[in-house]
């Protein structure tokens, strides 16, 4: 088991490199120009000089190699320096954003807290709610709750965040005035009042995001739960006198998490990568918002770095999902037993 996990991690690393290279190639090939935002009156030769200064004169493979070195060696060294006060990375060139000309990692570090708070909170709430709702709908199949769940889920995944956010802002931000409409990233939580302010500004984006999360996961949960509840071992567990709560939340839940874990893992990287539209609407300047603005301005180093970290999160999440799946259902972790000619 452990060696298999290690083997997976070993294969994840080259995968990641390939993905990073693919992202780089993609960004290279995509249309876009870091100078596009500049006034049209800036003459071509000035633009050219600015491009040179960004390092765009070098060949693409060379730039990728440089980025890779910075990503794998220099940035970790900088992080270690920051933590331990060493000076491993002194004087080394870090990955610099083309927009801000500052280190990309510093930008990401600035953005991560709000993304983690909002996305993480929303994802946690959304997932838990989804599991509860999915299980409850499956138990009382075709009951009122199941029907209501179907409607809520349909609304949740049919209504895009830009719409739900607008409605919530309109109702709670403008009409009732209960919540701020712009997220204040400079707010420091120091006392109860500022804590309250923080909660108030988080609640709407979290509501929007968790509605989406819930909508998507709950249906999978319900379907899986329905399948499980029809199985004989659930019948057996009941015959052994386990209380229904335990049968459902322990025996059946674990069995039905198999198809749901990948769904949860699919969305989890957003906790780090941010939810682009929701962040934009509420002005939660998280990683997602950084990614969009960087994309809009063709700030390739920033985009590449965020995409690379997101890829890392995705690969890790999927790895975790595989490991968790193997742990939930040992048959999935079982080594090769199927012969050829399958």
């Amino acid at each position, binding site marked *: 088991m452990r060696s298999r996990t290690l083997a997976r991690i070993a294969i994840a690393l080259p995968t990641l490199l390939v993905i990073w290279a693919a992202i780089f190639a993609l960004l290279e090939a995509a249309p876009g*120009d870091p100078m596009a935002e500049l006034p049209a*009156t800036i003459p*071509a030769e000035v633009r050219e000089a600015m491009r*040179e200064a960004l390092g765009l004169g070098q060949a693409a493979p060379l730039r990728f190699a440089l980025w890779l070195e910075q990503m794998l060696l220099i940035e970790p060294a900088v992080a270690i320096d920051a933590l331990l006060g060493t000076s491993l990375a002194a004087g080394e060139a870090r990955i610099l954003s083309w*927009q801000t000309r*500052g280190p990309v990692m510093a930008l990401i570090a600035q953005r991560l807290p709000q993304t983690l708070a909002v996305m993480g909170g929303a994802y946690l709430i959304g997932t838990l709610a989804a599991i509860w709702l999915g299980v409850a709908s499956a138990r009382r199949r075709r009951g009122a709750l199941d029907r209501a769940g179907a409607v809520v889920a349909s609304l949740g995944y049919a209504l895009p965040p830009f719409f739900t956010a607008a409605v919530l802002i309109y109702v709670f931000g403008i009409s009732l005035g209960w919540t701020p409409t712009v997220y204040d990233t400079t707010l420091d939580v120091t006392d109860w009042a500022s804590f309250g302010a923080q909660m108030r500004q988080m609640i709407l984006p979290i509501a929007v995001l968790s509605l989406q999360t819930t909508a998507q996961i709950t249906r999978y949960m319900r379907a899986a739960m329905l399948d499980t509840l029809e199985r004989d071992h659930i019948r057996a567990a009941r015959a052994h006198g386990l209380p229904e709560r335990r049968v459902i939340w322990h025996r059946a839940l674990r069995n039905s998490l198999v198809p749901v874990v990948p769904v949860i893992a699919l969305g989890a990287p957003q906790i780090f990568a941010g939810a682009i539209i929701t962040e934009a609407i*509420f002005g939660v300047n998280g990683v997602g918002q950084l990614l969009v603005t960087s994309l809009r301005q063709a700030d390739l180093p920033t985009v590449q770095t965020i995409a690379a970290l997101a890829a890392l999160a995705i690969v890790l999440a999927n790895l975790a999902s595989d490991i968790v799946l193997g742990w939930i259902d040992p048959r999935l972790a079982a080594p090769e037993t199927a012969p050829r000619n399958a």
Partner: protein
Amino acid sequence: EERGRDGMVRLLYWQAPSTLNPYLSGGIKDVEAASLMLEPLARLSPEGEMIPWLAAEIPSYENGGVSEDMRSIRWELKPGLVWSDGSPVTSADIAFTHAYCTAPGSGCAQAAKFRDIDRIETPDAATAILHFTEAKPYPYAAFVGPQTPILQAAQFADCMGPKAPGCTAQNFAPIGTGPFKVTEFRPGDAARLVANDAFRAPGQPAFAEVLLKGGGDAMAAGRAVLETGEFDYAWNLQLSPEILGRMEASGRGQVVAAFSTLVERLAFNLREPEAAPSDAAPAPNAALADVSVRRALTLALDRGLMAEIGYGKTGRVACNILPGPPLYASDANEGCAQQDIEGARALLDGSGWIDADGDGVRERGDTELEFVFQTSTNAVRQDFQALAKEWWGQIGAKTELRAVDASVFFGNDAASPDTLQKFNADIQMYAGASDSPDPEAYLSGWSCDSAPTAENGWSGQNVGAWCDPAYDALLERLSGTAGAMDRAALARTLNDMLVQQYVVVPLVDRGRVSAHANSLGGVRINAWDSELWNIAEWHRLPE
């Protein structure tokens, strides 16, 4: 009155500044944010007139500040100026700023403004003489306006050339002479500033703190000022007039607009068929070569309605491609707001464009009046597209609409077929402006050699590839003419050539639109300079 008496002012720049050094970014948002700290020698007033700022007065021929041969200009600093760290501002800082921006490898975004400066002479601490490499009839490019403020030599001395971008600490907190100084800057997110104790005007600024917040979108920004009152000032509210009107109606704030030269326009693709960007891209419709077709298409537009639908009070019908400053605006094209469908039809009938085959589309010979009309994706532009399609349909021309993502359309990526410069369509719509009150640079964008071609890497502003030697000759004259009146006359003639030959169709003169809370006093929105140009005078109004 006491400095900092009014507490905090909250500004919402939904496109958040990503650096505070305007030399490393030409983006307006960055330039505006930097103008809280960094100041130039002279600014432009909301009317487009130069006003001395750090300079004691505006140098001119009359006062001898500009030399007879137009090859040098002499600036005198106001006496007693100090940086926010207390050290004096000297002419060395001016010379340094020039050196900083022209140092090779820095990628200075404002290099064009310094281009013709040969050297800067600093006879004394208050005087800087700019010597040009050639005669400059309009010598006010450098150090005028928010793009080229003065940097503190002491702070940026180690940031020359290739080292410029890496000087994060400096770029994110430049020391300036302006009313505020930075305490915290999070690029792309927020900046906090406090009043500059060393600011030269007593009792200014009225605010002790500035919160400059970014993020969200124009809608959220408008809402936060006009509807919920969370912020005092919101910048660049490109929203539909109904929405702005509705927001304003909630009574917390007001929408303000200012006009300069930003004109939404149509360009016709006049490229020769063989000069199409690539084999795959079809050649533009040859019908456009007929000026009467261009004119008919123009007549069919109801520009008044367009301005009203798209911009409301923040836009006005543009009959000139150069609508300002007032002296430069031609009055030869009045009445363009009037739609004339009948006239357009008659014009087409008269020049042989008729619908012979009865398919509802006029043609002459093999050429059908069928056009591909492209622009960037943007709600207003799509509405304009729909309107034009409708009206052109009424005069017997068929239109296929295309919208391209703005970052691609304006991206000028040589590899993409969908850029403004490649002009892979027959008609396109975009906005352009002169970034200086002097229109020479702007108007030279229609010279023959500024047509984008494969050879010049698809750069140049003459996207329609219109070419008229007479226009080029006039431009030549403009570049040798000094004196505002003469220059203005020439500029008007050039403008009229463009408009009357229907090379471009100016549609709407777009204002800069912002909003401020009713409690915020002293705001004078300025489209020629930074909107924050007079923030030192802003103050809280009593309830």
